[in-house]
């Protein structure tokens, strides 16, 4: 899939609806019964689960997600969305934090058990623009969504990780191994600079002679908004992977809508799951 196709699909949802066969060619959405290949503790409340998914694995593009039906959670009616952390021809992996009853139920699963997933969902990140220095920003488990793209990029850039404390910093070693420069900020100073990741980024940007950068970020909304503001002020593009409570994951239920700027109406709803989850910062109409 080329960057141009991504954009046309990204910005013109109705075009996709009118050309369903073209659309299907781009995003072959599948439902797959997967088997847990590995389920390992990463650090603190963070876990990695690898699922056998020969149908979905090869189709995943960076920044896309899967909808996972949590087994042993009989009174739940909704799937849980997870960014794809790793994907190959045989499998997909998620890197998750235990935050609620869904992730707690998932956390009890053992290798060999089966999980029903749908995917790949969403548009993911666009391809990096040649000539611009790639910059990645990961807040907490948002780091998981940044892995796939970095692995495919020839050009190495700088990645910024932010979190409350050292155990919230994920994937730093993986980025270092890929040859990326890693900058870390924690609020308690337990690793990296003490403070917010935006401060670390600002200092880094001020030391640069140019702003020929392109930013890809995933993390808490406050952090994404802060980087979105910087993108506008300093004139670079920031692709933000937004997180919303979702129900269907495929664009049908309109639960996960997000306000998107619209030249005529001021703003209009876009579906985070289907039209996103990645939006360029200028597209988002942030709440006052």
């Amino acid at each position, binding site marked *: 899939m080329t960057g141009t196709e991504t954009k046309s699909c990204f910005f013109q949802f109705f075009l996709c609806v009118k050309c369903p066969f073209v659309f*299907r060619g781009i995003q072959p959405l599948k439902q797959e019964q997967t088997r847990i290949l590995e389920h390992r503790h990463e650090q603190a409340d963070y876990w990695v689960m690898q699922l056998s998914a020969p149908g979905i694995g090869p189709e995943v593009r960076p920044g896309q997600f899967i909808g996972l039906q949590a087994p042993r959670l009989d009174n*739940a*009616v909704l799937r849980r969305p997870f960014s794809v952390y790793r994907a190959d021809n045989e499998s997909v992996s998620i890197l998750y934090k235990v935050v609620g009853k869904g992730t707690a139920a998932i956390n009890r699963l053992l290798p060999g058990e089966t999980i029903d997933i*749908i995917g790949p969902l969403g548009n993911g990140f666009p391809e990096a623009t040649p000539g611009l220095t790639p910059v990645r920003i990961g807040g907490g488990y948002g780091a998981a969504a940044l892995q796939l793209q970095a692995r495919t990029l020839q050009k190495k850039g700088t990645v910024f990780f932010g979190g409350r404390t050292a155990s919230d910093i994920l994937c730093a070693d993986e980025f270092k191994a890929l040859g990326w420069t890693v900058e870390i900020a924690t609020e308690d100073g337990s690793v990296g600079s003490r403070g917010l990741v935006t401060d670390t980024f600002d200092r880094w940007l001020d030391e640069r002679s140019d702003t020929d950068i392109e930013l890809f970020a995933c993390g808490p909304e406050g952090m994404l908004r802060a980087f979105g503001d910087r993108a506008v002020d300093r004139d670079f593009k920031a692709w933000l992977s937004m997180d919303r409570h979702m129900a269907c994951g495929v664009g*049908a*239920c309109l639960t996960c809508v997000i306000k998107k700027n619209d030249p005529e109406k001021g703003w209009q709803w876009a579906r985070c799951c289907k039209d996103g989850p990645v939006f360029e910062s200028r597209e988002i109409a942030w709440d006052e």
Partner: protein
Amino acid sequence: MSDIKPDMSVNIGGLQMKNPVTVASGTFGYGPEYAELVDLNRLGAITVKGICAEPHTGNQTPRTFETRCGMLNAIGLPGPGAKGFIESYGEFLAQYDLPVIVNVWGKRVEEYGRVVEMLSDEPIVSAFEVNVSCPNVKEGGSLYGTDTKSFASVIETVRAKTAKPLIPKLAPNVSDITLFAKTAEDCGADAISIMNSYPAMAINIETRKPELANRSGGLSGPAIKPIAIKLVWEAARAVSIPVIGMGGISCAEDAIEFIIAGASAVAVGTANFTDPSTVIRVIDGIEAYLIRHDIPSIGDLCGTVL
């Protein structure tokens, strides 16, 4: 056990369906959303998300909240409007061997008439489901579903605008569902669908704020199935027009229970979110049940509760 395939086809007030299974409005988008996961040609019909005459933005977020065995929603009927629906989805839906039931709503009686008038001559539209029971729209909405007089005026108005099958979708929160079923029949409706989501609410005890931006919403999912079964059972005995049963169907057994209670057809709703393959499993499961019980036709099972 018989080797002959049972007859799964049903006629819902003039709407011919190859099997008795459709999807509940609002849980399946307009078709393209699930087309990669579900073979749309296998459905008895598709019921698309509610359409009013003009485009509508719907409610603020959060719009849904998961509860035990169910979910609350207050989406607020956002949609592209009648013209936008045909422009954006008409061509797509026409590719399939798939009757299209268009769910319509309005804020005033005249708006119901207008949207039906705008869509009635569209070849893609097979039937109208009239949403008089949405709990999440302040104007109109559930008022038309809980007051027989207002209800009758909506049905009479839309009846005058179309000859296509007309299927009012009844509200569950009424003291006597048979009054509304009979009123629908008297006003010329061809069938009725039962039920819409049940008005409900959840509060976050830490923030003391309602979980939905709209404060309250409609409860759907397995939690409401026994309510829907009773309403279908009562209404089906009170009228001679067919009933489409829905509310918490998540497997073939649930659907069969509705049919035994008196439903001529059924709709799968929230379960589409849980498992997009539900609707196909329900169709296959009903057929397998008919074979297992040597029942030659789905009609022979309808309303057979003892």
